[in-house]
């Protein structure tokens, strides 16, 4: 019984949140890794692109809510998501046209793109704060839970409950659908294959008649879609605050690098590695040990390896370890 309770406890506070968070990171890291594979730079603006797409989604959500448009138990934001994606895609395409394309024609050094992306990051950041403000926004509606802790307890007779928020369920399902669609696109369609070809060998892709502008545009649109979806899911699950999205850059990049920059499968794995490590290291195991430990003994302290204030340190340490041991990532990426 105690063992089951311990498991329930761990599921509730580690497994379920880490699955949801990992899905969000995986989607974010996929965007970063795709941009890296095709455009060959680390897009520092990705966190703020997420914020931008999410902001548009939120604005549409509010508008729909004010018109009385609802999706029943599901959050209205899902209805607004396509609009967020569309606006975000337009935004990144415009920024590519105005900024990155020039450096592409110049065949500029990758670090120049990096600096340019930092510039875009600040403009996006300013724009988002300008439009929606720097504060927390809550835009989740509909049902709150798939399973409530109380119901779980009644159902199983355990003293520890497992609650699954609706947003967590939606996050994981959306992630699976999106990843399935993305890999179908990359491996089965002409446009997707041309993207992979371009990422593999740019010159040969040109010789084969693949249009680079088209490949770049498709990549931006997909990255914008992934960013908006990841951002909206994160915002539904937690809350939306522009600065948080900027800070997500670190775990997202850590995930992409752990998985090998440019490798989509690696990005997904990396997302979960980072999410699980972060949550496991910052979880206080006091009650867990209370269940599995000897009779009626609980430790005095929280038995928390690291305070949640330092959750970024987890991404950072994992990042450094990977760079030390396997600089190309656990799965080989295109970066060297």
């Amino acid at each position: 019984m105690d063992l089951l309770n311990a498991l329930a406890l761990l599921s509730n506070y580690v497994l379920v949140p880490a699955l949801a968070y990992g899905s969000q990171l995986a989607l974010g890291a996929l965007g970063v890794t795709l941009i890296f594979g095709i455009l060959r730079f680390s897009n520092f603006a990705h966190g703020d692109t997420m914020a931008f797409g999410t902001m548009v989604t939120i604005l549409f959500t509010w508008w729909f809510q004010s018109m009385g448009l609802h999706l029943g138990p599901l959050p209205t934001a899902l209805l607004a998501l396509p609009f967020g994606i569309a606006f975000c895609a337009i935004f990144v395409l415009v920024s590519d046209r105005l900024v990155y394309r020039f450096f592409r024609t110049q065949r500029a050094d990758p670090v120049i793109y990096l600096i340019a992306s930092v510039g875009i990051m600040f403009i996006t950041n300013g724009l988002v704060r300008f439009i929606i403000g720097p504060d927390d926004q809550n835009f989740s509606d509909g049902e709150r839970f798939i399973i409530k802790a109380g119901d779980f307890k009644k159902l199983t007779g355990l003293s520890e409950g497992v609650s699954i928020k609706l947003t967590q369920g939606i996050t994981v399902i959306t992630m699976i659908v999106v990843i399935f669609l993305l890999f179908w696109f990359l491996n089965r369609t002409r446009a997707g294959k041309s993207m992979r070809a371009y990422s593999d060998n740019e010159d040969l892709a040109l010789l084969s008649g693949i249009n680079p502008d088209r490949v770049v545009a498709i990549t931006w649109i997909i990255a914008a879609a992934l960013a908006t979806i990841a951002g909206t899911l994160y915002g539904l699950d937690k809350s939306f605050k522009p600065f948080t999205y900027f800070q997500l850059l670190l775990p997202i990049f850590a995930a992409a690098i752990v998985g090998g920059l440019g490798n989509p499968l690696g990005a997904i794995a990396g997302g979960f590695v980072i999410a699980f490590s972060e949550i496991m290291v910052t979880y206080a195991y006091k009650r867990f040990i209370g269940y599995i430990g000897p009779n009626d003994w609980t430790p005095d302290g929280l038995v928390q390896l690291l305070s949640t204030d330092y959750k970024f340190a987890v991404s950072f340490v994992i990042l450094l370890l990977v760079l030390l041991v396997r600089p190309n990532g656990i799965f080989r990426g295109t970066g060297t």
Partner: protein
Amino acid sequence: MRNVIYFLIMAGLLVLVGEFQSWNLSLSILNLCLISAVMALGVNIQWGYAGLFNVGIMGFAALGGLAATLVSVPPVYEAWSAGGTGVLLGTLALILTVLAAVFSYRRMQGRSFRMLVVVLISISGYAIMRSLFDPAADAIEKVNPSSTGFLGGLGLPILIAWPVGGVLAGAAAWVVGKITLGLRADYLAIATLGISEIIVAMLKNEDWMTRGVRNVVGLPRPVPYEIDLQQSDWFIQLSNRLHTDPVTFSSIFVKLCYAGLFATVLLIVLYLSEKALRSPWGRMMRAIRDNEVSANAMGKHVTARHLQVFVLGSAVVGIAGAMLTTLDGQLTPSSYQPLRFTFLIWVMVIVGGSGNNWGAVLGGFVIWFFWIQSEPMGIWLMDVATSHMGSDNALREHLVDSAQHMRLMTMGVILLLTLRFSPRGLLPEKTGRN
């Protein structure tokens, strides 16, 4: 020639502010311009000399701020007796753990066995450290929490903190650089971003050291206090002779003292940077930057050189960070924002002219000036632009309230415009080739 004209224009702008707004404002802008210029010099050493992209400037500046606190604040003896030993032992345990892990990593054979040993050492070392540290930190934080609740510092003159800040920042840079230099530029960028977030998180959360978000206020000054000046005879006489009001003049006088100190540091750093740039070392650095492959082929140890330059540049940023905290007179961990401390400095370097030290200094002045002045300008602009809407219009209120965020966009636009249309900046690097 171009140098002189630009700097004269800059001086003219500051004089205009002095004449039309106030000399107090003009001097506080000048002081921050000087600090910004030092920071920009540090970044220019990394980017301009070696092409290293550091996105963690904020963290190194924050370490400088930490140094200012640790050096200057008088020690809290009660806190030391409550948990001083614990903290010292904990630190010792941490150092020993790291040494043991590194030693066994270097000395042991067998890949997986070695990793296992290193992991075991790290985990047990971490556990020991925490068991020593946590109770000590708790005890320290309980000592008179409303006014102290931390160990305090060494009670030394704050000027000593400036080099110490440089050393702290340099040490952090060494760790990051050692791991990430020699890999892709992107990795260094991400790693510096990470370390800066962690440093700031530490400042915010390690209350026993920095009082966290409750801030350490009232750092001792290296210059006289206004109130003392206003009561000294010589000062009142001087003030009378200059036909000024002693109260206003005292604050101007203090700011002038700071300006003198900062300018001295700036000149020293600038002199050393220029000298280094013209030395064989500087020529080699630029050769490496312009063609890493051939420099490598010529037997130059590129990664080691990069590490040198990365540590040096970060140390300069650390010094500037200590200077800034000295000027503020308090350590405010929540004030470390990447936008202000990392990004703005980058704009300074790029706009000023990458690779040119004078350019970095000029960039520091110009960008800080516009950063400060653009907020009132932005609010005013928004106010005028929306004046037809009526004073209680919601959109108008939103726009005027949000005008401050325009600064971010403006700076982003300035950076991108420079990068595209004038990539060599206001004062381009002098090279033999072009």
